[in-house]
C-alpha cells in the first residue's frame, strides 16, 4: 500500500481517499464488486440452506436449529432479492460499467463522477437496509422477491411481514434511486462524453448493451419505485391500492378498507421485472460478442445487426411483462397477446445466439478461461432460453406456472448465464485492476466444476417441475403420490448444488492469490482492440471496435481502435477514418 505521509507536498492521497471516498470510477467499480461479493456469499449460503432443508427437513442447522416453514420462506425471499438486485444488477450494470465504460468510449472520466459516487453510497445503504431485515423483530420478509400483495401489504399476514417487509421496501426504494441516478450518469457519459473519433458506429457492443440497459433501468426502476410507494402507503397510511375488500387474515376479517387490486401490483412489478432480467443479461450478451471476437480472432459478425438486435430486445422487453401473469386472473385475451409479444422477443435473442454460434464455427478458438466462461454463458442462455417459449404458451403455463420448471428456466437463463458472464468479465478484466492475470489452471478447474455443478443443480429441476413440484414450498409431504418419488432427484440436486458452491472457493482463492502472485499481464494481455487496453490516456479512435484476423495492410492479427490501419496513411494529422464523411 502506498505509505505516503499525509503531510507531504502532494495533495494527500490516503488509502480511504483514493479507494473509498472517491469519485474515481475504477475505485467505485471495486467497491461495487465488493458489495456483489458480499451479496453473492450470503445469497449462496442461503441457497444451500434451501437445498439442505429440502432433503433433510428434520436436521437442525448449527446455531439455529430446525428451519420452520416460515423460516424457509424468509430464506427464499432473501436469497432471491440479494441475487437479483445486489448480484445480477449491481455487478453487470454498476460494477462493470464503472470498470471499463469510460475507457471503452475513449475518455477517462464519467460525465458526472459525483452523481456516480452518490449512487454507490445509496446502493450500499440499500444493501444494509436489506440485510437489516434479518435482525429486526420476527426476521426477514416471507413474500418472495416479487412481494405479491395482500401478503406483502398487511403486516399481520405472517412473521417478517412487519418490520422485515419494511426493511425490504426501504431497501428496494433506495436501490431504485441509486439505479436511476447511476444510469443517468451512464447515459450522459455514453452520449456526450465519447472521445475524439468515437462515433456511435464504433462503440463496442458492451457499450451498446449498457446504453440499452441503462435506458431500461431508468424506466423499469422508476416504475418499481412508484409501486413500492403505493405498497408503503397501503401498509402504513391505511390506503388500499393493492388490498382487496373483505380480506380475511388468520380468520379475522380486515375491517374497513376499500377494494383494491392485487393485480395492479402484479402488472407494475412485472413491468419492472421483465426489463430487469434484460438489464442483468444484456451486458453479458455484449461481453459475449466481444470475447468471442477476441478469442476466435475474428471480427464480430454483423456488428450493425447485433446493435439493432440489442436495441430491439430492450424495446420489446418493455411489452412482455404479462407472461408472468397468465394464471393470475388476467383477461385471457391479454394473455394471448402477451404470449405473442413474448415470442416476438425471442426472435432478436435467437438471432444473437445464432450469430455467436456462427462466430464459434468460423474462428480458431482459444480456450482461455474467459472464453470458457463465455461458452458456458452461451450454453446456459440456450438451454434456459429454450424453455422460455414453452412457458410463454398460456395453456402450457397454466400447468407449469409456480412449479420448479420455472425455477429451472430462470436459474439457467438468468442466474447461471448471468453469473458465468460475470466470471468471464472478471477473468478478462482482472489485469486492469491488478496488472496480473488470474491463474489459468485454477480458472479451468473452476469452470469445469461449476459447469457440471450448475447443470446438475438446475437441469433436473425441469423434471421436478414437470412432475408438478411447486416452488416456495418448504417440504414435500402429504398425500400426493408423485412427490416421494422425487426425493432422489432432490437429493441429487442438493449434492450438485454443494459441488457448485464449493467450486467458488477455487475462484475466491484464485482472485486473492493472483493479485500478488499471478503472472504479470503486460500492456494488452489478450491482444484486444477496445480502448480499456489502450496505453494512451486520451486515445483517439481510429476505427471499428473488433478488427481481428487479417485486415488490409495489417501486420498483426488485430487492429486496436487506437491504431491506424495502414502505415501509409499515418502521415495525415487526422486519420481519414475518424472524419465524418
Amino acid at each position, binding site marked *: *500500500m*502506498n505509505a505516503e505521509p499525509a503531510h507531504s507536498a502532494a*495533495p494527500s492521497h490516503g488509502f480511504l481517499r483514493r479507494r473509498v471516498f472517491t469519485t*474515481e470510477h*475504477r475505485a467505485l467499480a*471495486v467497491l461495487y464488486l*465488493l458489495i456483489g461479493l458480499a451479496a453473492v456469499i450470503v445469497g449462496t449460503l442461503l441457497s444451500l440452506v434451501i437445498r439442505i432443508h429440502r432433503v433433510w427437513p428434520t436436521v437442525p442447522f448449527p446455531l439455529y436449529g430446525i428451519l420452520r416453514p416460515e423460516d424457509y420462506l424468509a430464506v427464499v425471499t432473501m436469497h432471491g432479492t440479494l441475487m437479483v438486485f445486489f448480484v445480477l444488477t449491481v455487478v453487470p450494470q454498476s460494477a462493470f460499467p464503472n470498470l471499463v465504460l469510460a475507457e471503452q468510449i475513449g475518455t477517462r472520466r464519467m*460525465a*458526472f463522477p459525483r*452523481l456516480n459516487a452518490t449512487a454507490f453510497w445509496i446502493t450500499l445503504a440499500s444493501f444494509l437496509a436489506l440485510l437489516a431485515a434479518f435482525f429486526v423483530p420476527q426476521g426477514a420478509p416471507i413474500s418472495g422477491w416479487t412481494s405479491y400483495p395482500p401478503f406483502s401489504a398487511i403486516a399481520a399476514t405472517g412473521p417478517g411481514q412487519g418490520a422485515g417487509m419494511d426493511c425490504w421496501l426501504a431497501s428496494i426504494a433506495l436501490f431504485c434511486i441509486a439505479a*436511476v*441516478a447511476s*444510469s*443517468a*450518469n451512464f*447515459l*450522459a457519459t455514453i*452520449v*456526450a*462524453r465519447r*472521445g475524439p*473519433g468515437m*462515433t*456511435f458506429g464504433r462503440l463496442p457492443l458492451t457499450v451498446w448493451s449498457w446504453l440499452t440497459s441503462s435506458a431500461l433501468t*431508468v*424506466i423499469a*426502476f*422508476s*416504475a418499481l*419505485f*412508484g*409501486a413500492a*410507494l*403505493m405498497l408503503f*402507503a397501503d401498509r402504513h*397510511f*391505511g*390506503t*388500499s*391500492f393493492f388490498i*382487496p*375488500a*373483505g380480506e380475511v387474515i388468520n380468520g379475522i376479517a380486515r375491517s374497513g378498507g*376499500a*377494494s*383494491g*387490486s392485487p393485480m*395492479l401490483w402484479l*402488472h407494475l412489478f412485472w413491468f419492472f421485472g421483465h426489463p430487469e432480467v434484460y438489464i442483468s443479461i444484456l451486458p453479458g450478451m455484449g461481453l459475449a460478442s466481444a470475447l468471442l471476437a477476441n478469442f476466435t480472432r475474428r471480427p464480430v459478425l454483423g456488428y450493425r445487426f447485433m446493435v439493432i438486435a440489442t436495441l430491439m430486445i430492450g424495446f420489446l422487453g418493455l411489452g412482455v411483462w404479462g407472461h408472468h401473469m397468465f394464471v393470475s386472473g388476467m383477461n385471457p385475451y391479454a394473455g394471448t397477446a402477451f404470449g405473442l409479444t413474448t415470442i416476438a422477443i425471442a426472435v432478436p435473442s435467437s438471432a444473437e445466439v445464432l450469430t455467436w454460434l456462427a462466430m464459434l464455427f468460423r474462428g480458431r478458438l482459444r480456450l482461455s478461461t474467459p472464453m470458457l466462461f463465455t461458452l458456458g454463458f452461451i450454453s446456459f442462455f440456450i438451454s434456459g432460453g429454450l424453455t422460455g417459449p414453452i412457458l410463454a404458451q398460456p395453456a402450457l403455463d397454466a400447468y407449469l406456472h409456480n412449479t420448479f420448471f420455472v425455477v429451472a428456466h430462470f436459474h439457467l437463463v438468468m442466474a447461471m448465464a448471468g453469473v458465468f458472464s460475470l466470471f468471464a468479465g472478471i477473468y478478462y478484466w482482472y489485469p*486492469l*485492476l*491488478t*496488472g496480473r492475470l488470474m491463474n489459468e489452471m485454477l480458472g479451468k478447474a473452476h469452470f469445469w466444476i461449476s459447469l457440471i455443478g450448475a447443470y446438475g443443480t438446475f437441469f433436473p429441476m425441469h423434471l421436478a417441475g414437470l412432475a408438478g413440484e411447486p416452488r416456495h414450498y418448504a417440504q414435500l409431504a402429504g398425500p400426493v403420490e408423485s412427490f416421494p418419488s422425487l426425493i432422489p432427484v432432490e437429493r441429487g440436486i442438493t449434492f450438485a448444488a454443494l459441488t457448485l458452491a464449493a467450486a467458488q472457493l477455487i475462484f475466491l482463492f484464485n482472485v*486473492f492469490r493472483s*493479485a500478488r502472485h499471478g503472472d504479470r499481464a503486460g*500492456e494488452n494481455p489478450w491482444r484486444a482492440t477496445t480502448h480499456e487496453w489502450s496505453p494512451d*490516456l486520451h486515445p483517439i479512435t481510429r476505427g471499428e471496435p473488433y478488427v481481428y484476423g487479417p485486415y488490409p495492410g495489417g501486420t498483426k492479427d488485430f487492429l486496436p481502435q487506437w491504431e491506424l490501419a495502414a502505415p501509409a496513411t499515418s502521415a495525415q494529422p487526422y486519420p481519414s477514418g*475518424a*472524419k*465524418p464523411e
Partner: protein
Amino acid sequence: MPATFTRHQVETEKRDTGYGGKPPVDRRPTGGGGGDDNWDSRSSRHGGPRELLIRYRLAVLSGLAGDFVFFAVLVSAFFVRPTAGHIDAGANFVSDWHPIAIPPILWINTAILLLSSLTIEVARRQLFHEIDVMEEWLGLGRPAVKRAAPWLLATILLGGLFLAGQWIAWQQLSAQGLYFATNPNSHFFYLVTGAHAFHLLLGLLALVFAMAAIFRLKKVEMRQIALDCTAWFWHAMTLFWIFLFILLVCYQ
C-alpha cells in the same frame, strides 16, 4: 483486497470545464445547445461549455424520463381502481369508487403554475442572450444575471404560492372528511397531488439553489447550467401537473 493499481496515473486535473470555449448563446429560438453538433468531429471542441450543457441536460432528461414513468405508474392506479369492486353477500357487484369534487382552488393553482413556468422560461432565456453573455464572459459585468434574477424570484414566489394553494386544497378536502385513507379516489387524489407537491418542493429548493448559483458561480456556463436544468425540471413538473389536473377534473 490487495493493493490494486491502475496502469495509468489517474487523471485529476479537470481539463474539461471549458475555460477556452465561449459559453453557448441563443442564436436559435430554442436557447443554447441546439442540435447542430456533429459528434464525429468534436475532437477540438470536446469538453467545451456547450458539451457540458448538453451533458447536464441529458442527465436531467434521463431523470425526468424516470419521473414520467413514476407518475404514469401512479396514474395507472387511477385507471385500474374504478373497475375494482367486490361482490357482496347478495352477489351484487359493489364498486366503491366515489368521485371527489375537485376543490375549485386547484384552478387558480394551475394558473399560478403555468405562470411560473412562463417566468422561469424568461429567466432562462436571459442567460442565453448573446450580447449579455459575451459581456459576462469577458468579465464586463453581469447584465444577464441581473435581468434573470427578478424573473427567478417571481418563479420562486409563484412556486411557493402554488404549494400553499395545494395545502389549502388538502385542508378543504379534509374539512369535508376526505383523508388519504378515506376511499379509493381520495387515496389517488392525495397520492398524486402529494407526489407532485414533493417534486415541486425539490424544484423550489433547486430554484433557490439556482438563484444562489447565478450570483456566486464564477463561470458563465455553470451559471447557465444551474438555471437551465432547473428550468427544464420546472417545465416538466408543470406539464405533469396539467396531465394530472385533466385526469382529476375530467376522468373521475
